């Protein structure tokens, strides 16, 4: 007991000493301080967390709290003043299908997110055109044989309304086409993880997901208008299903928030950690 107590005291003292020393060094080198709260899209959360970790090493006096929920909660939290940055999978400063523009907010591009059409491994089709996808998701095409596959019912798996992935997929892959609910062979999922599990376990199913989630042997990405879903094809402009990820701010960002966004947009972060997380640097896109 006594030994344990002694040990605890020593450990505490050591920790205190080390922290003070570090804080002292940092304070000498860096004057930036503040608190940044980030809310919104789960798709961008891994990127945000990584950036926050690196940024706090450079500026230890800046506190960053990041959390993820639905995309729309990002700009909402910014509007209400709860968060300084709202991560969102679409540009919330303009109208998109289903969601009105958030007035007075500035959209800061931070990454390019590619999406892929995925099917269960038992589906023989490996290419789908815009018209075929429109037909499938609007319920007009219900059998795989109509798009060059085996004679089997198509099971449509989709994200529920309000998902950023759904907003972008509808805009880019379906060219604004509708996703229509059906009596049979239709299912909505609540997250990218659920989507992957559902498509992986349901034969004859089709769905869509962030390209980073495409892995394993149970699902496969199909070509879109003859182009394979790879980051290279996104960069050279031939693969069209992708979108920018945005940090929404109330007006132009200032202070620590501005520094943080600039750090995320910097060459060092974009070509380093961001690439490692399988996002695409914004500088790689021409448009």
């Amino acid at each position: 007991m006594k030994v344990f107590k002694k040990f605890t005291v020593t450990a505490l003292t050591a920790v205190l000493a080390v922290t003070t020393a570090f804080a002292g060094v940092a304070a000498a080198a860096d004057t930036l301080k503040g608190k940044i709260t980030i809310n919104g899209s789960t798709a961008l959360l891994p990127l945000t967390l990584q950036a926050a970790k690196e940024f706090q090493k450079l500026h230890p006096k800046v506190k960053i709290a990041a959390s993820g929920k639905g995309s729309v909660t990002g700009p909402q939290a910014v509007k209400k003043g709860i968060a300084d940055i709202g991560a969102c999978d679409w540009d919330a400063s303009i109208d998109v299908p289903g969601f009105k523009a958030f007035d007075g907010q500035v959209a800061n591009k931070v990454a390019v997110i590619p999406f892929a059409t995925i099917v269960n491994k038992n589906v023989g089709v490996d290419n789908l055109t815009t018209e075929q996808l429109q037909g499938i998701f609007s319920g007009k095409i219900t059998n795989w044989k109509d798009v060059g596959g085996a004679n089997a019912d198509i099971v449509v798996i989709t994200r529920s309304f309000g998902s950023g992935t759904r907003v972008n997929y509808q805009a880019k892959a379906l060219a604004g086409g509708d996703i229509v609910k059906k009596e049979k062979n239709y299912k909505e999922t609540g997250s990218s993880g659920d989507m992957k599990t559902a498509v992986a376990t349901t034969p004859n199913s089709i769905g869509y997901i962030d390209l980073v989630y495409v892995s394993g042997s149970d699902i496969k990405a199909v070509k879109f208008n003859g182009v394979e879903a790879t980051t290279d094809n996104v960069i050279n402009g031939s693969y069209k299903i992708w979108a920018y990820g945005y940090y929404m701010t109330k007006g132009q960002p200032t202070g620590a928030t501005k520094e943080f966004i600039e750090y995320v947009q910097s060459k060092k972060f974009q070509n380093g950690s961001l690439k490692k997380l399988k996002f695409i640097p914004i500088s790689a896109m021409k448009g």
Partner: protein
Amino acid sequence: MGAEVESLASRAPKKHTEGKIKINAKRHSRHLLSNSLSRYYFLFSILALCFVLGLVIVFIGKTALLLFADVSPADFFLSFNWTPEEDFFGAGAFIINTLSLTALTLVIAVPISVGMAVLCAEIAPKWLTSFIRPVLDLLVGIPSIVYGYLGLTVLLPFLRRVSGEGLGDGLLAAALVLALMVLPTICRISDDAIVAVPRKYRDAAYALGSTRLQVIMRVVLPAAKRGIISAVILGMTRAIGETMAVVMVIGNTPQLAKSLFSPSSVLTSNIVMQISNVEFDSNWNYALHMMAFLLLLISFALILIIRFMGRKRRDA
């Protein structure tokens, strides 16, 4: 404090009588004090519970009622058209789906779990009982997401194969998962209720020449009815409120379930699917709050109905 009283008491006989009386008086007042203090503590406990319950009802209800400023109650309760992006907030399909899912779950779970309870309490040899009971207790504690995952990866492929459906999601899949979840709860509480039936009831029935089945059906089960009903209530409230397991196997499509295999949605699953994607000050958000409020009302109502039924039958 208990130890102190004990040591005082044991020391007391050594002293002369006067001291003993003094100590007894002290002890008496101390008991009075702790008695009245404990009364306040118990009162405080129940008030804290009421306070939280009140908060839930007031805050959910307040946000929920904002909905009716724009949407007529008739539309909300009777319409089957839930298309929030086009301002149609008809929750009728969810209400009916919730009720039918709960009913289906109980139809599957109650006979089996009461049968298991009878086996445990009346028929099974001791070694089997002492194995089954801990296993059931373990099953009660398994998180619902685990049941949901089993449903998704084991039950759905099985249902697909048996029924020939493409998807398999729907009321039947959800009811089977829920039945599995509420089964141990209903079984264990019924089991306790049956064990609590006095031995002499059985002895009397056997003495009158009853068979074992007659004793169980005509004497033991009626005597344990109140306990079994409260077991069913507990199971039912769990079935109505269960969210995660249901979300994974019901298909989450806002429409009326016209068959056991059509993908649909219940109140809980619809709330959890959409709540993170809605704007704070929108009718959509209010409608989801109204659905949560409705869920509260439905479970209150069902509990009241079953209590009422149980009392009436007992009187007759």
